[in-house]
């Protein structure tokens, strides 16, 4: 099977969007420079022209508004932010304009803008370069939010959303995955709305792990680890936080009776909260044990590596939570002793 990095899947998706749709344009700080948005827009300005792949002033709100207006007049803009934290400057245009333009005017318009924003720890990012705002966006009707966890997901969801979907989209891409190689099955790329649907990333019978973005990879790692000790984890990749497949979730929980949500953001008012609501509104007796949630510590992100390592959940905590939930005794199962997720994934070293 073909393998492909997350980065290359992004680069291919950007290329194809420009190649297949003459009305696609890419906006973003540095999209045309020699680093090319962590390598995902390299060479595109040269190939498709500076008017289609444009460096922008440092004006997030303005450029977002410009993307909205361009979309109203026939373009399909992609707007890239090297950090999701910077999108906070553009929230008025996203929440008050893009998410509502179609509705407010009774369906006269579509606003096909696609916002790519990078999330995730990498290298001492600190409080202002580390946030993961999927819950924020997902609370507001009118947006689609995706959190692809592998190269296949990128190929599928970007192809669909950049070609056949016509509303505003926010895609949150995890920085630590850029260099990771994934299997890609081109013959079986999911299409249409299926391209962003939640799916079973692993079948199991003891516990359901519902995960987003890189936490899906973590879930797979912990599942593999625990499988050796007889614990069988089922994993649901949420994929789109605005389009969670409730049926899939409930079916899985009917089987396992145990729910652990692993998300890249804070737990409170986050994906874990929403998943728990979906469960409890459906059936109050589905779970055998209390659900658990893994996410960032309830603080802004500290910069020091040693604190970062405690701030983000690691494999040991992940395993520990599962072991406690399935009722195995910890004594019997040694905990993995990795210090830090980023040590595992990271091929790159500083600065970003």
């Amino acid at each position, binding site marked *: 099977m073909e393998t492909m990095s997350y980065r290359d899947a992004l680069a291919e998706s950007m290329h194809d969007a420009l190649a297949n749709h003459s*009305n696609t*344009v890419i906006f973003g700080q540095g999209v045309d420079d020699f680093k090319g948005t962590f390598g995902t827009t390299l060479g595109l300005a040269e190939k498709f022209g500076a*008017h*289609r792949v444009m460096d*922008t*002033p440092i*004006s997030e*709100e*303005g*450029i*977002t*508004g*410009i*993307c*909205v*207006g*361009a*979309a*109203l*007049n*026939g*373009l399909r*803009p992609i707007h890239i932010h090297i950090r999701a934290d910077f999108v906070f400057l553009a929230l*008025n*245009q996203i929440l*008050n*304009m893009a998410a509502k*333009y*179609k*509705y*407010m*005017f*009774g*369906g*006269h*318009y579509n606003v096909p803008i696609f916002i790519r924003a990078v999330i995730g720890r990498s290298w001492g990012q600190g409080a202002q370069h580390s946030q993961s705002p999927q819950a924020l966006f997902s609370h507001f*009707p*009118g947006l*689609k939010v995706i959190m692809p966890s592998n190269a296949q997901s990128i190929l599928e969801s970007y192809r669909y959303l950049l070609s056949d979907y016509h*509303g505003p989209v926010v895609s949150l891409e995890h920085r630590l995955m850029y260099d990771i190689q994934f299997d890609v099955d081109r013959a079986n790329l999911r299409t249409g709305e299926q391209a962003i649907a939640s799916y079973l990333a692993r079948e199991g019978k003891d516990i359901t792990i519902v995960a987003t973005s890189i936490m899906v990879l973590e879930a797979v790692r912990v599942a593999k680890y625990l499988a050796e000790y007889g614990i069988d984890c089922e994993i649901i990749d949420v994929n789109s936080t605005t389009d969670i497949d409730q049926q899939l979730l409930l079916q899985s929980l009917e089987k396992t009776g145990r729910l652990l949500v692993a998300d890249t953001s804070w737990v409170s008012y986050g994906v874990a909260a929403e998943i728990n609501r979906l469960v409890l509104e459906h059936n109050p007796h589905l779970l055998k044990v209390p659900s658990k949630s893994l996410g960032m510590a309830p603080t802004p992100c500290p910069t020091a590596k040693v604190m970062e390592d405690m701030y983000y959940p690691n494999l040991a905590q992940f395993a520990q939570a599962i072991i406690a939930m399935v009722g195995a005794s910890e004594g019997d199962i040694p905990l993995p002793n990795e210090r830090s997720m980023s040590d595992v994934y990271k091929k790159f070293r500083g600065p970003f």
Partner: protein
Amino acid sequence: MNSRWNYRDLYYQALRIRMVEEEIIKIYSSDKVQSPVHLSIGQEAVAVGLCAVLTEQDMLFSTYRSHAFYLAKGGDLKQMMAELFGRLDGCCSGKGGSMHLSFPQVGFMGTSAVVASGIPNAVGAAFAEKMLGRGNLTLAVFGDGATEEGVYHESLNFASLHRLPIIFICENNQFAVHSRQHERQSYSLRKHVEAYAIETHHISQGFDFCEVASAFSDICNDFKESPRPIFIEVDTCRYMEHVGTGEDFYGGYRSAAEQAEWKRQDPLIKDEALKAELAPQIAIEINESIAFAEASPLPSYADVLKHVL
């Protein structure tokens, strides 16, 4: 009066807008229109003069103070009235209301109730227009207060940097809600814009639709020779309160005398003869629009759920 423009036609347009809004005032107390209304009474000549020069393909983005530009640009009156009445035949199916009118068929591209938010949208539409090699004009219409928002700075900069085919229209009524311009702005509007290497114009006779049309027509002719960002400040005067149907001086922040000079020159007040001649026909149209609105079905819950994605 300028002979290039048919005074009578433009007068008709302006009077029609005023009479529509006067009718809104009249019926407002009946609670048939249950949403905030920001009236343009006193400012109609700006919309009429500018839109006289535009085609239906030219795109205009404006604000919650939407009625005048909607009508001047060619938006359908019946559908506007139905929109204000919250009916399914409204131009936005009742979802927009007075603050969010739109009529894409004539290039009336939408109005935002968040100050200045439509400005970058207009810049983006102009960007698309240029990139797609089409030649229509895009207008961003906003008030003096909108220039205080950061996104205005960002929009001017981008438009100038890429020499986009856009015309910024600042309707300067010197007020934002109850605050006067000098209490809010340290800059003079046009000097500030010129710092972005954007050409500016000033139309001071905002009460005179023919003057506005003439001045704007000259600018547009030049613009078509050489499409580029242009900024036009049009002085005007709001007769009514910021939002709602009251006069604009009952709060004490403004005197009636201040408006008197404007009213003295206002053709819709001055030219009583023409008004008397044209009003009856307009009144019929307005009544028909109200009848249309009232006959239009109310939206259902299924309608609430439509148009989200």
